[in-house]
């Protein structure tokens, strides 16, 4: 079977995918023709079997299902690809009225039907008429293994790599000849390594020859990932059973020790990444507050709601894009950033002009008033959008992870947020230091009376400063919508953390906010594995309280007369 596959699919190496597809199709018909013409008995026997086997795919019994999958794979006929893929993707349905089986695609009214083997159109049906063929995780693994074998020789390096990994997990001895032929042809070194890894796993698990097993262990020991660790652990735990006995076990133990020590090192790198990532989330949440609280001195309890409004703006932008310009979805976040800045900023200006400006110099009243505002905003959003979570989609370029051979996985959304938070911080520092607006802001906050007498309209500057802080909180909302719930409570979970970061870093100092966020993130992540999430948080709060006792102005305190007021 695998040889047939090798021959058919190997033709596709080299030229582009569309070319390969057409060749594939041609070959498919060619294959059917040939099999009809030259191998009458055998082929007819198989052809008669296939429909029955496909029907069996929808069986309620998992044992029957996996039997059918194995038999279909063993037939080696390329037409079985379609029903197997449909089963994996959940598109295989039986019609209730006559018990026939179909591949479906969703249409406006229900389903369009296609015959699973011939691909002939079968009209349409409403969803009530059809029953889906269910699968479980065990069946899913088997399907992926079977389909993996079929795409192992395909033109797409990513698919080949996935196929090799699927075989690694399934570890079925039937895959050996296929893998060997694939390894002989493979040109991409990274994919080649994955294939060797899969082959070693099969040899290691099932071979009767101690020498083969020892060699497999050697290959496996060259990898540093959790899956290899699991595999080696498994056999170490089984003891001296299997071919090679004690010698193999000892080698496995030694390889395992190597894998584990390297994993530990990479684990450290992973903790570091996670700490920085948490730090960047804290930084984003706190950076707006560093302006409203840090620079202006307003205890703004509604800061979290500005973040929440930013997240809801992202949702709105995505809704509009989904309904009107579906092609632009991957760019939705870039459109949402200025939109969220504007919306949150305007709400911020309204709050400043409407409420806060009457309360300057009265911190307790400001605190209570802004807390009230935060409750009003939450309930307003709840009334407009409903209390349930809103789905904010993740663009394709932000999902998944950057995976290294060592098993280190850096998730793209976290990477993007780290870079984004640094960009926002940099931009803000530029605005504060290099623009006339920044100059006026600093002037007003340092000495209001003097600034006023120099002709600066302090009221306008106050409103703009508060608007800037709120707008940046809105931008943070765009980023947080990617990792957290978009619900009316989104802001609440960040308000305490934000104040913590600003106070710890030093009130009125943007750089302090940066270091505050990063150190809190890192400490949190290095503490969590030992103390657990709940205790870890308590430790950090206690440590922070102690720290504030000794340095009430935070890590980077502003010095000079201006501070004393």
């Amino acid at each position: 079977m695998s040889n047939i596959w090798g021959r058919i699919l190997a033709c596709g190496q080299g030229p582009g995918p569309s070319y390969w597809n057409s060749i594939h199709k041609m070959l498919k018909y060619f294959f059917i023709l040939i099999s009809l013409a030259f191998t009458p008995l055998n082929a007819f026997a198989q052809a008669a079997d296939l429909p029955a086997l496909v029907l069996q795919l929808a069986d309620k019994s998992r044992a029957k299902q996996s039997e059918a999958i194995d038999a279909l794979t063993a037939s080696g006929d390329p037409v079985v690809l379609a029903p197997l893929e449909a089963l994996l993707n959940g598109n295989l349905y039986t019609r209730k009225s006559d018990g026939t089986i179909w591949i479906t695609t969703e249409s406006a009214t229900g389903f369009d039907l296609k015959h699973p083997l011939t691909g002939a159109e079968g009209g349409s049906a409403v969803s009530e008429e059809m029953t889906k063929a269910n699968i479980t995780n065990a069946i899913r693994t088997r399907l992926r293994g079977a389909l993996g074998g079929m795409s192992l020789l395909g033109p797409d390096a990513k698919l080949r790599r996935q196929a090799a990994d699927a075989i690694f997990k399934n570890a079925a001895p039937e895959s050996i000849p296929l893998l060997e032929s694939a390894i002989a042809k493979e040109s991409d070194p990274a994919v080649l390594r994955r294939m060797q890894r899969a082959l070693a796993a099969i040899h290691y698990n099932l071979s009767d020859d101690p020498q083969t097993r020892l060699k497999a262990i050697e290959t496996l020991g060259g990898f540093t990932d959790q899956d290899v660790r699991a595999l080696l652990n498994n056999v170490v735990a089984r003891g001296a059973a299997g071919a090679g006995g004690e010698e193999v076990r000892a080698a496995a133990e030694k390889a395992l020790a190597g894998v584990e020590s390297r994993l530990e090192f990479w684990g450290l790198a992973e903790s570091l990444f996670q700490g920085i990532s948490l730090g960047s989330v804290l930084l984003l949440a706190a950076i707006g507050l560093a302006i409203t609280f840090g620079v202006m001195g307003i205890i703004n309890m509604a800061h979290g709601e500005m973040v929440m409004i930013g997240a809801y703006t992202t949702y709105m932008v995505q809704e509009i894009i989904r309904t009107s310009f579906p092609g632009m979805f991957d760019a939705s976040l870039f459109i949402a950033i200025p939109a969220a800045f504007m919306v949150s900023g305007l709400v911020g200006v309204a709050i400043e002009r409407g409420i806060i400006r009457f309360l300057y110099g009265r911190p307790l009243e400001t605190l209570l008033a802004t807390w009230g505002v935060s409750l009003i905003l939450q309930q307003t959003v709840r009334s407009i959008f409903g209390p349930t979570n809103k789905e904010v989609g993740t663009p394709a370029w932000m999902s998944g992870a950057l995976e290294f051979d060592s098993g280190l996985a850096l998730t793209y959304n976290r990477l993007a947020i780290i870079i984004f938070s640094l960009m926002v911080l940099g931009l803000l520092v530029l605005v504060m230091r290099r623009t006339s607006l920044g100059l006026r802001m600093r002037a007003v906050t340092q000495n209001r009376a003097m600034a006023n007498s120099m002709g600066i309209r302090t009221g306008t500057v106050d409103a703009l400063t508060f608007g800037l802080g709120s707008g940046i909180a809105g931008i943070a909302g765009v980023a947080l919508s990617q990792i957290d719930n978009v619900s009316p409570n989104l802001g609440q979970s960040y308000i305490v953390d934000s104040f913590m970061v600003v106070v710890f870093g030093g009130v009125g100092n943007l750089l302090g906010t940066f270091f505050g966020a990063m150190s809190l993130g890192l400490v949190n992540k290095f503490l969590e594995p030992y103390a657990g999430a709940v205790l870890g948080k308590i430790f950090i709060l206690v440590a922070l309280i102690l720290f504030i006792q000794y340095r009430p102005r935070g890590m980077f305190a502003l010095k000079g007369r201006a501070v004393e007021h």
Partner: protein
Amino acid sequence: MRKFLGKTWLAAAIASFAISGAQAADDTIKVGVLHSLSGTMAISETTLKDTILMMIDDQNKKGGLLGKKLEAVVVDPASNWPLFAEKARELIQVKKSDVVFGCWTSVSRKSVLPVFEELNGLLFYPVQYEGEESSRNVFYTGAAPNQQAIPAVEYLMSKDGGEAKRWVLLGTDYVYPRTTNKILRAFLHAKGVSDADIMEEYTPFGHSDWQTIVTNVKKFASEGKKTAVVSTINGDANVPFYKELGNQGIKAEDIPVVAFSVGEEELAGLDTTPLVGHLAAWNYFMSVDAPKNAEFIKQWQAFIKNPKRVTNDPMEAHYIGFKMWVQAVQQAGTTDVDAVRQAMYGQKVKAPGGFDSVMNTNHHLSKPVMIGEIQANGQFDIVWRTDGPIVGDAWSDFIPESKKLTADWTFPWVCGNCEKPKYAAN
């Protein structure tokens, strides 16, 4: 003079208000709704409030109950546990509610319990919970651990479920996850799983940074045996948890996660494509193929005027609870709590889940257990279900001190946590 006039005015106003109030009390049967409409739990509980409003509306269209109209009395305990007790008292004493449907979290239930027992009120609690309780004044229409947690773990141990040998128990840090995990640990011990193969981890409410925990789960799973995660994570924390799982590339085939608090409603805020194959255990799924369910979904979407809204297990529990209460009131001929309670035992309702649900004398329902796998469209595919309804067990058989206790509110027991019957039957 002016002062005097003002006072008369006020007195007249009060008098007329009192009269109209008294009239209303005579004309209608009051149904209290005690669900948070603001705060953290609003996300889940608002839907339940709407469910009860739908049921009341429906009953009134059928001509009401005992010749009277039903009237909803909605209060908002705002996800604030002590406020639940206050509002419960208000519902029973001031608003004179004949029955109350309410609560979601176990903390809120524990907080209203003394109030209902003191004032002899009647509460229908619709959420799956940790068990270890049976109050004379509460009917539990959600699942007890033996109707959800235990069957789910048994499924994962089975061949179809992937034969898991190592277990991660993840939960939010409060009474429901802690008690459930205590029961699960005892159950796993009984099945021969050692402590070294169990990892237990708790997080605060609303936890949003799951990187470390997901990494640890991955590491724990790579120690040579098939691993499964049992999640009692509640509320908002679920979305970031599943997002992190998806991003770190944990597939259901490698490490399946079975959740007890994630239903259709929770998945509505998520892109479920990376989560296909992860599991949830409930007594009802929206995807149940039964005529009664189609009717229920149609009724709900028409009432809420949104053809995209989903239904879930606690909503079904309220549906069953409300229908049973109506039947019991009709049978008793009164809304008097003591009479209705007696009439409740053995009440049978055709549930949207496609079976007959029965109220037992321990105040728990008989329901079948279903395990569903998450699909790309945010729905669940039912991959396993019990052959018939399972009787809810108030006291777990896997905790030695609870095993001895019996909950039975009929003669001769008349008790929620006794080792011996109260009255000797002779």
